[in-house]
């Protein structure tokens, strides 16, 4: 089923997924994870993606971000067909236009908080000094200015995740993919994190696809999609896991 069909919506679409299928080889046999998936993500909207463990949520994020190559179907982001890009081009595309937030923060341990944020800017060609100044500004905005020169191991889980969010959005990507960003945080830190994320997304007008197991997090999104049995459904009413 398609999550969105209107012509106006089509024009506003940033991400268009059509006929997407994906399988992994397991014990010499192909195990389908995604089957004929089609949906769109509009510019500026936040979409929550729900689904049971192992249903293919992370695989879907990997495919949209170009980390994994599409086996079947099409993914278009801002009119660019990912299937037409080779691995190198997909990597450059990801670097410039996509931000990724992970459950386990994944900060580079040998870089400070500011350097972690500046890294994505530098990778995109910004001069180091300018990138560092901008990173410090961003950290100051979310109350982590005093921790700018701290290494990951010197930050709490909540602080690490807030730095990770800044790293994902510092280059103002068109699309932010978040894979259970609150999954490793307590309720309070999770709320803090979501607040920071919303602020940043609002500031840049980025589109967000947010994988979560948390209903509270999902309900804060503009739309909710559920992934089940390899297919995707737009959620319209109450649901329970």
């Amino acid at each position, binding site marked *: 089923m398609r999550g969105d069909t209107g012509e106006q919506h089509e024009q506003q679409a940033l991400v268009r997924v059509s006929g997407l299928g994906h399988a992994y080889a397991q014990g010499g046999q192909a195990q389908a994870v995604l089957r004929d998936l089609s949906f769109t993500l509009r510019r500026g909207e936040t979409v929550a993606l729900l689904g049971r463990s192992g249903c293919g949520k992370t695989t879907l994020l990997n495919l949209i971000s170009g980390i994994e190559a599409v086996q079947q179907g099409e993914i278009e982001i801002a*009119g660019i067909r990912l299937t037409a890009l080779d691995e190198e081009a997909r990597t450059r595309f990801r*670097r410039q236009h996509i931000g*990724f937030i992970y459950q386990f923060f*994944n900060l580079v341990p040998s870089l400070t908080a500011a350097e972690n944020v500046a890294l*994505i800017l530098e990778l995109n060609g*910004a001069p180091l000094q300018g990138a560092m100044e*901008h990173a410090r500004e961003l950290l100051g905005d979310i109350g982590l200015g005093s921790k700018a020169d701290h290494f990951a191991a010197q930050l709490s889980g909540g602080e690490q995740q807030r730095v990770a969010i800044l790293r994902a959005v510092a*280059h*103002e990507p*068109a699309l932010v993919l978040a894979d259970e960003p609150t999954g490793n945080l307590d309720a309070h830190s999770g709320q803090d994190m979501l607040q920071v994320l919303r602020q940043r997304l609002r500031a840049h007008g980025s589109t967000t696809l947010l994988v979560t197991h948390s209903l509270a997090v999902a309900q804060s999104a503009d739309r909710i999609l559920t992934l089940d049995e390899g297919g995707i459904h737009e959620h319209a009413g109450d649901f329970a896991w």
Partner: protein
Amino acid sequence: MSTLATLPGNSLAKAHSRGSARLLWRASWRHARQHRWQSWLSVVGIMLGVMMVVAVDLANSSARRAFDLSVATLSGTLTHQIVALDGGRVDDELFTRLRSELGIRASAPGLRGEVRLQGRRFTLLGIDPLSEAALERRRPGFATEAGALLGLGLRTLASARGVLMQRDAAAALQLVPGAEVSLRSENRDTAVVLAAVLEGADAQALEGVIVADIALAQEVLGHSGLDSIDLRLNSEEAERLRAWLPPAFIVVDAGSDTATLQQLSQAFQINLRAMSLLALLVAALLIYNTASLSVLERRATLGVLRALGVARGTLLRLVLGESAVLGLGASVAGAALGLLLGQVLVRYVTRTMDDLYFTLTVTRFLPDYRVLLEGAALGLGLTVAAALLPAVQAANAAPITLQRALPEEYAWRRRIRFLALLGVVLLGLGYVLLLPERGSLVEGFVALNCIVFGFCLIIPFLLSCALALVLALTLRHLPQTLRLSLRNIQSGIGRTGLAVAALTVAVSVTVGVGVMIGSFRHTINVWLEQTLSGEVQLARLDGASGIPPELERAALALPQLREVRRQYWQTLHTDFGTVRALAHDGAAADQLYLKQAAAQDLAAFAAGDVLLLAESFAWRHELKPGDTLRYQTREGEQSVRVGGLYFDYTTGTGALELPLSRFRQLWPEQGPQRLSFTLTALADRAATLEALRTLTQNFPGAYGVAANAEIKALTLAIFDRTFAITDVLRLLAILVAFVGVLSALTALQLQRMREYALLRASGMTVGETARMILAQTVAMGVCAGLLALPLGLWMSQVLIDVINRRSFGWSMQHLVPWLVLGQALVLAVIAALLAGLYPALRIRRLSPALALREA
């Protein structure tokens, strides 16, 4: 439909299209600093490897230049030489006739001999300045030969008893022009005057040379006549000269004999170089280990970077760049240290060349600075090459979202089978390369490397199988710590296998070289026993026509001596160059250490019909029993069939054994050069030697008297001196390997700290955990030691039967010194034990809670 241009984006980030990723370098630098012990060990390993290569290359190139310079100084630019067919002197009169009858003006007399001045050895070079000017001979040290030497020569050499010395050599003896000095030659002193000192760009070429007028040189050396008449001829003139020359003389191409000597000494140098390269190879394994471990440790970080959009090429360059920085620093430091070590090693190399091949007049260190650059480049190149595979692994790191919990080590279980297969292929290749009886030395070394590498690649598989077997058979009987230790080795086979392989290679070098040297020494001992007949030797040292019969009779009249054997030798000009022709007055089987001679051939030898060839000479010129050898005699060319081969470990251009009857036909006036006496039962050896020495003083000429035991001791001392450099290199190779093993094992243990913390948290005591770590490293040491034995023995076989044979033409008996094998095993265990000490000590300070939290 929108395009990329319409996408939002940070203006700062879009300012440049391609990033320099300085932050990635910063992260790398911090990672290296956090693991500085690992970085330092790598630096030390590469530094030692480069130091060895540079030092050996510098020593070799310096010795080679000294050799070339010595040859050039003593001979200069010649095309031909006239020498006496019997190896004796050339009459002065022949030189005069050559110029007057044939009109060959481009000729000069050649004369040189060994003298001592204030106890130091010099080569006395006799020259005739006028003839030198006509010959236009160019020699290093004589700036403008014809002009300067003529002027200087006429002025100073013609002055009363004047000699010339190099400035530094004279200064070292505190001599100034005008000083009266005494030159000693064969127990006779001659007073001369230092007329002038020689200086100039190539003056160092003359540091071991004293130049004198030819007549004064003849007086100092105590004989008339010349060594040679040196010529510069075209082929037409050479033919004309050959037709004219009296039968007692022969025209030879200049430099053919020194070329043979050079070839032999080069083989010695190639052997040294191979050993130094082996050390660098071990250092490369170390770099590979460090780089791969660094990549493994950063697997998650690399995955994050990949997910962030860092291109594969960037990561490849990053890891290669890290290794290049380490390699560059270590290579530069290694080259600088190599310069220092080279100055020590050159003494060993020049002494060996001096002992075995050629009297060098130049012994100073003559560094070739290109070697420094080459060594540093080799170190850097090898470092980058060794880091290539880990760099590719880094570039291929899966983005973090794709990384599975599957540890790298599981992948190794599959890889080791492939590596083992590759190892078998390499071993097979090495074996095939060794199959041909003849082949180049380089092929021999390629084969040796194939065998070492092939064996290395099989080790992880062998280790894995052996551990599986041991664990299966002893599962219920092993204590828990030992069982865990063995399981740890097996589960980390990628890393443990590499560490065991590195240690195996290092220890096998000790075994291989140790067995080779032991076998060689044993063979030399047997050869000396076989060839030194009698108990006391009396030899003529001045190369004249042998020991006078009166001296022999007087010696035999001594009551202590009861029997004598005579040995004769002369120079023989064969189709394969100048050789030393020997003859004995006993049966060949009693006098020679025979290698290949059938009974009928020995009978033919006794009848004077065949000759026997020294094995090394036969090998070099591909001669075998049944072939015919041609040589020049006064009566013209003769040819004799080769009847057999005998072992001979003397160095030089070659040797052969003639039947005594044939020798006497060729040189009827030649007396024995050496007499071997047997003592009577009650004779006192020391008193006999003294009596013989006293006796020789009544006869003209220079003689040497020595007991067989002294000769054996001296020969073995020269042997040990020759291999002293090998021992130095072997020790350094082991040091490099030890650093490698220490790095690999320590890294392995530190990588497992979380696992150990878990065990500590589960109730294992500090002592139990430390014992488990030590048991693991000791078990790896035992495995490496055991694996090193077959590899080392195989290596020794290749060294003995292929490398030495192809280098020198020598074959030798195989002797397995059990002590060497035992030492190797102990060395491996100690190296492994030491490597386990640091992690075992560190575990004492490890807080289980903290370690688990950090992880």
